């Protein structure tokens, strides 16, 4: 099999089915500051060119994230570096001006079950679909022409909960008012699937669904596996089932240490896990042998090692992890997070070379 003989879509599908394919599929994500650095160092255009150089096999069509007040962005205060904003989810956060980073969450409008039932639930249900289905269809046709694995994308219910009611309220309510949590999870999932149904109705037939939702951090999942199984997992299962019913595969993104719930992901029907965060203790050299036959692995190349710009160190990382992933035939390249601006353009080009060298079957 030669690279020219196989499209990106065929390659990803064969990877997900553990069938022989020519090389590991590839994709990556970059901080805006990384692209800015690379532009100073010789990248001519923008991240699409970085992805072209990498040989990305993926094309996103749309982003589904229900918000009760779509389009709202009210600047409440600002200083030289940051601005405090009330956003489309009714929350107040402090954001950097002109650079990336997790915001400081100052407050959440939906801070009680009463606020949910009186204001936020009705507002969510009344909000229009934020997805431009015509644009999704254009991206689909473009992706098909380029042979890409086209996919629908969006946010799952746990991330939706956190954005709407905040981490502390969410995690406490999972113990003190689980029925409230179940209601938010159901409404969020209903809306995401309704929005994506409308995209499908525009005549697109994507290869997959790639859903985002960070449910873990360095230490573990934020809640216990049992609590996840009871309150959030049913929605995950529902999303994966929806994808499969429409002939699509399901990729799930979460940061953090999720080793305790890999079996639950498999039970939910997830086809693939991404980005498999190395600094959270996730290592495909451990998990590919135990779970790689049932859960494809997409990522795990440590951005902390990339950030050293030590190509020999990065080569060892890629060589050993690719060997583990490729042994299952179910592995795709992605950095384990987003490529940070400490990584030089020269280093990333070397990484692309290493991915090509070690990622060919």
């Amino acid at each position, binding site marked *: 099999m030669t690279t020219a003989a196989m499209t990106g879509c065929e390659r990803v599908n064969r990877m997900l089915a553990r069938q022989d394919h020519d090389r590991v599929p590839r994709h990556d994500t970059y901080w805006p500051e990384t692209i800015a650095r690379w532009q100073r160092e010789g990248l001519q255009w923008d991240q699409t060119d970085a992805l072209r150089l990498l040989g990305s096999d993926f094309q996103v069509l749309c982003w589904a994230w229900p918000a009760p007040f779509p389009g709202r962005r009210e600047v409440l205060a600002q200083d030289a570096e940051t601005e405090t904003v009330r956003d489309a989810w009714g929350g107040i956060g402090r954001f950097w001006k002109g650079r990336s980073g997790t915001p*400081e969450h100052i407050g959440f409008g939906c801070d009680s079950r009463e606020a949910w039932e009186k204001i936020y639930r009705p507002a969510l249900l009344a909000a229009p679909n934020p997805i431009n289905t015509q644009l999704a269809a254009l991206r689909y046709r473009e992706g098909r022409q380029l042979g890409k694995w086209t996919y629908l994308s969006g946010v799952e219910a746990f991330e939706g909960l956190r954005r709407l009611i905040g981490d502390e309220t969410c995690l406490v309510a999972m113990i003190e008012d689980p029925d409230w949590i179940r209601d938010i999870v159901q409404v969020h999932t209903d809306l995401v699937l309704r929005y994506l149904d409308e995209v499908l109705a525009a005549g697109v037939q994507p290869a997959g669904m790639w859903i985002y939702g960070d449910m873990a951090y360095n230490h573990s999942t934020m809640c216990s596996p049992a609590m996840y199984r009871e309150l959030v997992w049913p929605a995950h299962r529902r999303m994966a089932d929806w994808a499969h019913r429409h002939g699509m595969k399901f990729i799930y993104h979460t940061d953090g240490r999720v080793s305790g719930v890999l079996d639950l992901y498999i039970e939910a029907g997830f086809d693939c896990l991404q980005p498999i965060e190395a*600094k959270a203790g996730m290592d495909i050299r451990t998990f590919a042998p135990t779970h790689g036959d049932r859960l494809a692995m997409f990522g795990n190349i440590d951005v902390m090692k990339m950030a050293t710009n030590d190509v020999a160190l990065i080569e060892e990382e890629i060589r050993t992890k690719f060997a583990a992933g490729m042994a299952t035939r179910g592995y795709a390249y992605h950095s384990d997070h987003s490529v940070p601006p400490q990584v030089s353009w020269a280093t990333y080009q070397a990484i692309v070379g290493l991915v090509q060298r070690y990622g060919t079957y």
Partner: protein
Amino acid sequence: MPLLTDLSAAVAAGKRNDTIRLTQELLAGGTSPQDVVEQGLVPGMALVGEQFRRNEIFVPEMLVAARAMKEALKLLEPLLAKAGIKPKYTVVIGTVQGDLHDIGKNLVSMMWKGANFAVVDLGTNVTADRYLAAAREHNANVVGLSALLTTTMPAMKETVRLLKSANLPNVKIMVGGAPITQAFADEIGADGYSADAGSAVSVALKLVGEAA
């Protein structure tokens, strides 16, 4: 009269109403506010920290326990203040300059309060100078630096350098956060490293010379 161990169990289980009731009953029965804190509430939160570190409980259980302790402290703090009793140790915490992330810091802060430390929370995007000023102003025993982003690790290194160069004799520095490792902590000269909120108390106690 209930036992102090009953109070410990209630707070560890996150039973807010029971924690308040038991606190009131213990006080009414003549137990000193200091004993209620040090022999009732603090051991309960210490158990929470240990269970969290072992993955026997998770963030929701830690949060409800911290809330139960907070409610009990609302009853106790006026009494302690009246008696002139202050926490034995003062800790300063913040997220380093360039980083607005606060959940990790907030969890550590809760656990430190649960250990009856006086906690001075500087918030996020804290410059090295602000850490130093707060450490001096509050006669801190421990300064805790939190970072989520790899891009803010240099700011953590600079903060440690500034604090060390100030030669504050009794101040120990501990670090933590998603990209932080023991190796990085050692490299930048921090006195301690906490891998998670559950171990933040034991690390701080070790730094001030007390057995955890």
